[in-house]
């Protein structure tokens, strides 16, 4: 049923329809509306015998789910940013133990400086933990990916993060087609764990593994992701069969046919990029776009097959590997190894900086005409940066950088006012 609804509310409705049995939650913006809604539903008795635990930290939240999942329960939580990093050790543990937990990441920048707005630094920091990572383009896809995530997680016995842009999606009111219970029940079977704590059949889960078998255990974790490359498109297709709309999959293409330049991105910014592609196409530029829905596993082969004829890939990414540049672009480069395709890195949208259509168009044109420096930072205030660099040279005790920059930008906006 279509309704005008906030992204977080819509995701909470979708999670509830998946009949979770244990949820453990800790508040952090911008995911809080999701767990608030779920707590109300549990307390009202709308989700069967589901248990909702208010815990003392994100580390505790995911740890509770590790225990509950090992006991055979369907489990869910949501977090972001500092919360995801605070639970980092448990993130690795959940994946290493092969527990099919589903977690929403309401993507947000990681401090310091503290910043509550959107970028992808948080989930990128956990990209190698062994979780599948699916990125939603809009709130409809966020809803759909959560339902698919439980299927995927439980089929592979592997945890899944559904990443949706903080505020941009979580707090946006859009029309969303919310599924009904019968559809979800038809799509999502009961959770049949591959390992469970059972007094009738006792097993040791989480035993110590030395050099004689650790590498094999890690390989098998990698193998799950290889299997996921096949499972994700299939599960997406089965979703379409029941819910009558395409959603998810490894990646989505927009006017990539005969495109000389392809802009690649994750998450909601693809909407802006599609508009930019439309404008550029109207001006005669052979430009297309790819939305990478599955970041883990990384669909290298599929991507290579699609873009092998393109001259240039411009990766617009909301993260920064400090000291190196792009995270996604580096993986794209590896996927395209041996091809003449140029891969550009555009670092954009950090800490919630808006990514405008005009800036995207300018960056794509610059990439095509004269090439971009590596990495290219979109819309940086170079004047403020230069003044701060000079101050640091001139004064040993130059003070805290973020405060200096805020002062710089405050002063310059006063001048223009």
């Amino acid at each position, binding site marked *: 049923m279509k309704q005008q609804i906030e992204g977080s509310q819509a995701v909470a409705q979708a999670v509830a329809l998946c009949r979770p049995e244990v949820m453990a939650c800790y508040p952090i913006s911008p995911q809080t509306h999701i767990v608030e809604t779920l707590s109300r539903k549990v307390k009202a008795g709308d989700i069967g015998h589901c248990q909702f635990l208010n815990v003392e930290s994100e580390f505790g939240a995911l740890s509770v789910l590790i225990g509950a999942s090992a006991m055979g329960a369907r489990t869910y939580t949501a977090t972001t940013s500092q919360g995801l990093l605070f639970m980092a050790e448990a993130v690795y543990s959940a994946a290493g133990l092969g527990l099919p937990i589903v977690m929403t990441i309401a993507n947000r920048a990681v401090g310091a400086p503290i910043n509550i707005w959107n970028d992808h630094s948080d989930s990128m920091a956990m990209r190698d933990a062994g979780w599948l990572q699916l990125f939603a383009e809009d709130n409809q896809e966020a809803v759909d990916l959560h339902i698919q995530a439980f299927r995927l997680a439980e089929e592979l016995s592997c945890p899944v993060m559904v990443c949706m842009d903080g505020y941009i999606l979580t707090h946006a009111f859009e029309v969303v087609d919310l599924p009904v219970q019968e559809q979800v029940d038809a799509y999502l079977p009961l959770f049949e764990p591959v390992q469970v704590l059972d007094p009738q059949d006792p097993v040791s*889960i989480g*035993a*110590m593994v030395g050099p004689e078998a650790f590498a094999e255990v890690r390989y098998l974790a990698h193998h799950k992701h290889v299997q996921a490359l096949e499972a994700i498109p299939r599960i997406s297709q089965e979703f379409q069969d029941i819910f009558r709309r395409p959603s998810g999959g490894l990646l989505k293409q927009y006017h990539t046919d005969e495109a000389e330049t392809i802009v690649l991105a994750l998450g909601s910014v693809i909407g802006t990029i599609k508009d930019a592609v439309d404008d550029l196409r109207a001006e005669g530029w052979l430009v297309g776009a790819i939305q990478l829905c599955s970041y883990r596993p990384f669909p290298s082969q599929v991507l290579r097959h699609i873009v092998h004829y393109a001259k240039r890939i411009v990766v617009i990414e909301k993260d920064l590997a400090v000291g190196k540049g792009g995270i996604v672009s580096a993986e794209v480069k590896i996927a395209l190894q041996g091809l003449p395709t140029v891969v550009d890195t555009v670092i954009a949208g950090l800490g919630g900086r808006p990514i405008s259509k005009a800036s995207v168009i300018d960056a794509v044109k610059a990439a095509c005409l004269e090439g971009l420096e590596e990495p290219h930072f979109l819309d940086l205030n170079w004047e403020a940066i230069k003044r701060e660099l000079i101050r640091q040279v001139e004064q040993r005790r130059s003070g805290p950088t973020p405060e200096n920059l805020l002062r710089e930008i405050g002063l310059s906006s006063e001048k223009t006012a």
Partner: protein
Amino acid sequence: MPYQRVKFYQTGTFTVGNRLLDEADRTVQARMDRTNSLNSGHRACQGCGEALGARYALDAVMRATQNQMVAVNATGCLEVFSSPYPESAWQIPWLHSLFGNAPAVASGVAAALRAKGKTDIRVVAQGGDGATVDIGFGCLSGMFERNDDVLYICYDNEAYMNTGVQRSGATPARAWTNTTQAVGIEPGNPAGVGKNLPRIAMAHGIPFVATASVADLHDLETKVTKAMSMRGARYIHIHVPCPLGWKSDPAQTIKIARLAVESGLFPLFEAEWGVVTDRTTIRKQISVEQYLSLQGRFKHLFNPRDEQALAAIQGMADQNIHLYDLLSTEPAMES
């Protein structure tokens, strides 16, 4: 008092005592049908107090629950010596995730059991003192305040032994560890630091808190059994000497544990809903020196004699004697 304690004079000694008792009063461990939750063949050191405590505690839980138990383990000696792949000493469903999250993992197991209506299956979480009083403290406090249906057992050997004897928040005053070396002005762990987790647990107002010792395994089993007769968050803190870290003779583990109790340094008591309800009295208080002098971790207090330190530690023991009324001949107390 629901349980009549076994007296020395009734049984001779604790070690042979079982044979002199009625069958019903014997320890779980003395029975043919004990479950061997932690089976033999594991890799604990000679004289390991923790392995002994865990074996008694978990078999008592198994008996109390008709074998319907799930155990969650923190990282540490107990996890490492029992589980190196592909061997496992555990005869029970057993889950290890991390060093600092065993209480939360156990809360999750309990929540799943509640969601599935399987309330006959009970959950025990266990960890060493490092996992309990330090790195897992946040999760433990959360499990307590939510009153989750978990029995948490801390095996307290008073330092990080698995990593090679480093100080924890449970390391006693003036003890040598590899991070509180016996050098400088106040050799060993400084006095006046550390935390008393049983008291902190009591401050959460949970249904049951008890201390126990491998020196009195009958008492240990009784407390575990009592804990399993209750629901909600329960905590048992078991004193388990570590020959490696305490630099003591492995053959003396039980004796040293008993001296800790009889000196007053490790008081045995139980509390319900935040109030002390019972304690094990001491027939004759021994001096702390008798306890300390058997352990190499305290040898810097004797060569030359550090009268000030010994007096300070004696003061701590005396304070416990007073606080818990340990020399009283009254059968029980309410405070």
